[in-house]
Each structure stands twice: as C-alpha cells, then as structure tokens.
C-alpha cells in the first residue's frame, strides 16, 4: 500500500525501520525546518531589549538541562532532585578554570565551545559517580543519592575559599570571528549559540532514543526484571542515564556561566532543582517535545509570579518579600496539579492538538 507522505492520518508502519524514522511524514519535516528557520531569523525583524532576550536565553539554557533530566526521570524513571547541582558542576568547571588561569585567558575567551564540551564531560563524570548506587538499588534510593549530592555540592561551594564561598566568580567576555562580543550584542550572540546547542542536543536525544541504548532506558523504566531477562544490564543502564543527564546539565551550566558572565551559588540550590523537576513534569515526563514546553511554561510562570509579587507589594505592609514565598508555592502547586490531573504534561495537549489538526474535518 502506498502511503501519502503528506497527509498520513494514521500509522502505516510495516517495518521497525519505518517506525524509527526521525520524521514520520514529510509534513513533519517541512514543519520542523520552517520552525527552525523562524527561530533563527526572527531576531532580524524584531528588536527585543536585553531583558526580554535574557528571558529567552534562560529558557534555552533550561531546555538543555531538561533534555538531560527528562532522560533520567522521564525515560529511565529515576527521580533526580539534584539536577541543579549537576548544572552547577558545569558552571563551576568554567568558573574554576577561569579562576586558575585568569578570566581573560585565551582558553576561556576564544576556545569557549571547547570549554562547554569539557564542562559536559565533567558533568557526566559526576553524574556517573552519583548514579553508581543504581548498580545495586532500585529507583527509590537514587532520590537519596541525588539529594545528598545536592547537599554536598551546596556545602562545597558555600564553605570552600577556592569557590569564593558561593559569591560570584567572573568569567570573561568571549570572542567570535568578528572580535569580542560586546555588551550590546551579548544576549543576541548567546541566543544563537544556545539555539545551535539546543538543536544539536535535541537531535542527539531524538537519535539516542532510536538506538538500542535509548530503548534500553525505556525498557528498564518499564520493567527492569524483564529487561534483565532480555539481556540488558539495568544497573549499567541507570548509571549511564545519570551520566548522560550530567553531560547535558554540564553543558547547560557552562552556557549559563558564559551567559551571565559569572557564577554564583544562588542558581544551583535545592529550590532550583525542584524547579527543574517542575519543568520536566509540566512539559511531560518521557517526551522530547515536553522538554521544550516545560522550561518555557515554567519560566513564563516564574516571570508572571514575580510581576504579581511586585504588583501586590504595593497593597501589603512593607518589608515582605512576596516573591520568595510565591515562587516555591506556585512551582509546588504546578507539580502537584499536573501529576494529579495531567500526568503526561503539556506534551499531551500538543499531541491531542496535532491529531485534531491532522484529522481536521473528521473526528472520532
């Protein structure tokens, strides 16, 4: 049966190879290319001030981190409450090197793509170490391992002089082929850099899930004994999931360090870890599109909550910091409500919308 590649209304896979395609229909491919082109060219038509640009950059950094967290929590089914610490490992890799060799050293300012990769590998090493208990234990205990890594990380940064006791460590401005990236184009430059990394990471994850290693993750999540019987090693798979999560987190951390041109403790606390978890849950556990929706939704919510707090402070007695109260409150509520009412997250809404459009004049 020949299949219309433009308007397929269902799945007509006859081989596994077909099911593993990146794009199922040509429409998907065209849509993806169109969407990416839009993302790359919109800054030419629209001028945003640096504050809004920073928000978008922040979302992209979070997307990279969430791609990792979704691998470990969504696909491999292990809760990680220390993801901010892994992001912190990446950020502090850049920061420490810039402290040792000086923040204007050529390695920091010119070889920054190398630095970002390097931070990813450092993050992967830490992720693998924290994931080691998975060799013997089931997922429950890994919550403890990640939590204790978060606490150890916070202590190490907060108490060691080498890490400036959690105060900001500066990272120099980077150079591009056209010279030093100045203050004006800083956020725009990093928008493009982040976008490229996000696209690369997104395709990497999509491809990973098509390979046997990616399918191993899902198999171990769904039933680790059955996976064991099929010849996979559940323990190694989990350790490897943690290492991958650490890799993405490390990259996100290094980009964060360059974006803010400095690293401070406050971006890597337990609250941030919970925020990352909220992003994953809201986006949709175990869904690649969810990794993009989640950070966007939570960062926008965060912004709205801050605006609300600023607005409400005018009515309230002074001296109250409403934002510190409302932020955890809203993230917690979002986590709980999504888990109870929509455990598959925004990605599920997206799926429903797509199938609605696909079938459009007809319905079930």
């Amino acid at each position, binding site marked *: 049966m020949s299949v219309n590649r433009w308007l397929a209304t269902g799945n007509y896979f006859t081989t596994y190879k077909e099911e593993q395609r990146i794009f199922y229909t040509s429409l998907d491919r065209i849509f993806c290319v169109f969407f990416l082109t839009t993302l790359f060219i919109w800054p030419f038509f629209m001028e945003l001030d640096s504050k809004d640009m920073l928000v978008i950059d922040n979302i992209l950094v979070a997307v990279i981190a969430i791609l990792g967290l979704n691998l470990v929590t969504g696909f491999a089914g292990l809760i990680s409450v220390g993801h901010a610490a892994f992001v912190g490992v990446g950020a502090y890799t850049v920061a420490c090197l810039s402290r040792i060799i000086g923040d204007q050293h050529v390695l920091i300012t010119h070889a920054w793509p190398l630095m970002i990769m390097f931070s990813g590998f450092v993050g992967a090493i830490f992720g693998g170490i924290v994931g080691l208990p998975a060799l013997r234990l089931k997922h*429950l205990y890994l919550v403890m391992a990640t939590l204790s890594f978060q606490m150890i990380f916070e202590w190490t940064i907060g*108490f060691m002089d080498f890490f400036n006791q959690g105060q900001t460590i500066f990272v120099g401005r980077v150079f591009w082929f056209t010279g030093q990236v100045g203050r004006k184009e800083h956020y725009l430059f990093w928008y493009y850099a982040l976008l490229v990394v996000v696209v690369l990471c997104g395709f990497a994850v999509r491809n990973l899930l098509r390979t046997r290693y990616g399918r191993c993750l899902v198999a171990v999540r769904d039933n680790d*004994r059955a996976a064991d019987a099929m010849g996979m090693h559940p323990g190694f798979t989990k350790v490897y999931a943690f290492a991958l999560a650490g890799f993405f987190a490390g990259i996100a951390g290094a980009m964060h360090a360059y974006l803010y041109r400095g690293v401070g403790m406050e971006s890597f606390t337990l609250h941030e870890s919970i925020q990352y978890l909220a992003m994953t849950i809201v986006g949709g556990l175990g869904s690649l599109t969810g990794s993009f929706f989640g950070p966007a939704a939570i960062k926008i919510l965060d912004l709205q909550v801050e605006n609300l707090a600023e607005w409400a402070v005018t009515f309230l007695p002074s001296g109250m910091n409403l934002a510190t109260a409302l932020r955890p409150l809203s993230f917690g*509520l979002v*986590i709980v409500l999504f888990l109870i009412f929509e455990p598959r997250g925004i990605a599920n809404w997206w799926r429903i919308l797509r199938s609605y459009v696909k079938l459009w004049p007809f319905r079930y």
Partner: protein
Amino acid sequence: MSYFFQLVVSGIVVGSIYALSAIGFVLIYKSSRVLNLAHGQIIATGAFITYSLTVTAHIPIYLSFLMSMIITFFLAMSVEKIFLRRLIGEPIISVIMVTIGLMSIIDGLIYLTPFGSENFSFPPFLPQQPIVYAGISISYTQLVGVIITFILIGLFSWFFKKSTVGISMRAVSDDQLASMSIGVSVPRVFGLAWATAGLSAAAAGSVIGNITGLNFSTLHAFGIIVFPVVILGGLDSLLGAVVAGIIMGLIQQFASGYLDGNFGLYGTAQVLPYILLLVLLLFKPHGLFGTHEIERV
C-alpha cells in the same frame, strides 16, 4: 576527656531528636512505600504551631505542645486525603514527586508568614542554669527534650507492637492485598500513618524549637538530615531509626568538635551525613536493621 564526654552528651541530645524526626518518615515508608520528602516541612509546621499557641494565644507550653501534636495529626491526615489518596495505584515515582511538590508548597506557605524570614525563640519556662556534673554541662531544656523524646519513642514502639491500629499498619506494610482480604482498610491505614507521622514530626519540631530556637532554615535542615539517618537505620525499621539517629548525632558532634578548625575545614557537621549516605548506598544500602528486598518474578 571531659570535652569528649561533653560531645557525647550533646551528640545524644541531637541524635535523639533525629531519631524522633526519623520515626515519622519511617512510619510513612513502612506503610505505603512512599519516601516523604516533605517531612522537614511538617516538622517546621509543628514547631511554628506550638510557638503561635504559646506566644500568641498564651496557652501554657505543655498544653500547646500537645495541642500542636493534635493539630498536625489532622493536618497531615488531610494532606494525605487531599493529595495522596488520589494517587493510590499510580506508579510510586509520581507519588514521590507529589511529596516533592508538597515540600515546595509548604515552603511557600511558610515564607508567607513571618516565620519564613525571622528568628523566634520560645519563652524560657525551665531554669536557665545548666546542670553541671564532672565538667559536663547539659541544660534543662535539652534534658527535658531528651526525656520527652524517649517517652514518645517508647509510646510509638508500644503502639506498633501492641495496638490494633499499629498491628494493621504492620500488616499493610507486609502485604497490602493480604491485609485487605482480612478486612483492613488500606486507605485508612495510609491516612493514619501520615497522621501519626505528623504527630511525631510536631513533637520533634517543638523539641528542636525549644533547644535551638525557631529558624526555618535550621528546621528545614533537620528535615533533610532525616534521609541519611533513615538510610543508616535501614529505611523500614523503627529501631534502626532510633539507633541511627543517635549515631548520626554523635558523628556530627564529633565532626564539629574535632574536625572544624583543623585541616582548614569548617562546617563539616553539615556535610558528613551526606557523604556517609552516598558511601552507605554503595556498600551497605539496607543499613543496619533494614530488610533486604527479595524479588520473585
């Protein structure tokens, strides 16, 4: 030598409070296999309720101690009913994530009150002079705290071993299906486990509040230190929680007594439990008294 014994005494004081905090956590884990990450927040809530009853409503402290335990009992029960009852039958991973959400919600609610940012201390109701014996001093507050803690631990163990509710809790923890078939209401047992955990958490919070003063980040830290304690004790053993609590208290006191200031280290008491936790997970994951899980296909 008296320095050593001083550290032992304060280690036991801190450790017994850890034990009391850990008991609530173990209760919930034992009955429903849920790791309650919001336990520290329940401890803090209990402490703040005691404080408001004592200072704002002028109720005598012993009475407000009891009242706070009762209030937290019902609070924890309703938390279970509102949030966790809906998730029975869902994968355990989403239940744990709901408790992470709860942790964040209660954090936010506490930050809305003055307790979130300011320090408070209970009005003194015991003699301020510490008891000094052979160079070792212990304050009356600490002594009373330890006594209350051990009485409560004794009561909980009795409750588990002998009372009908306690026995049904143990039955549910052993086999849900079997206990249902002999007429134990499993949802009710879950609710009661949360409620009892809330009660013990309120007691722990009030004792901590009296000894160290009320500070949200301190109480919060007490909630997180529960995790190394229960892993050391074995996650589903009440006796383990008590023994491990005291061991952890001693480790922390010795660390801050002997390590801090030497070798360029300080604040080691805050990090050693977590390093111990990671090492334990690698080499002795079932702790001192935990049951080894045996899986049959």
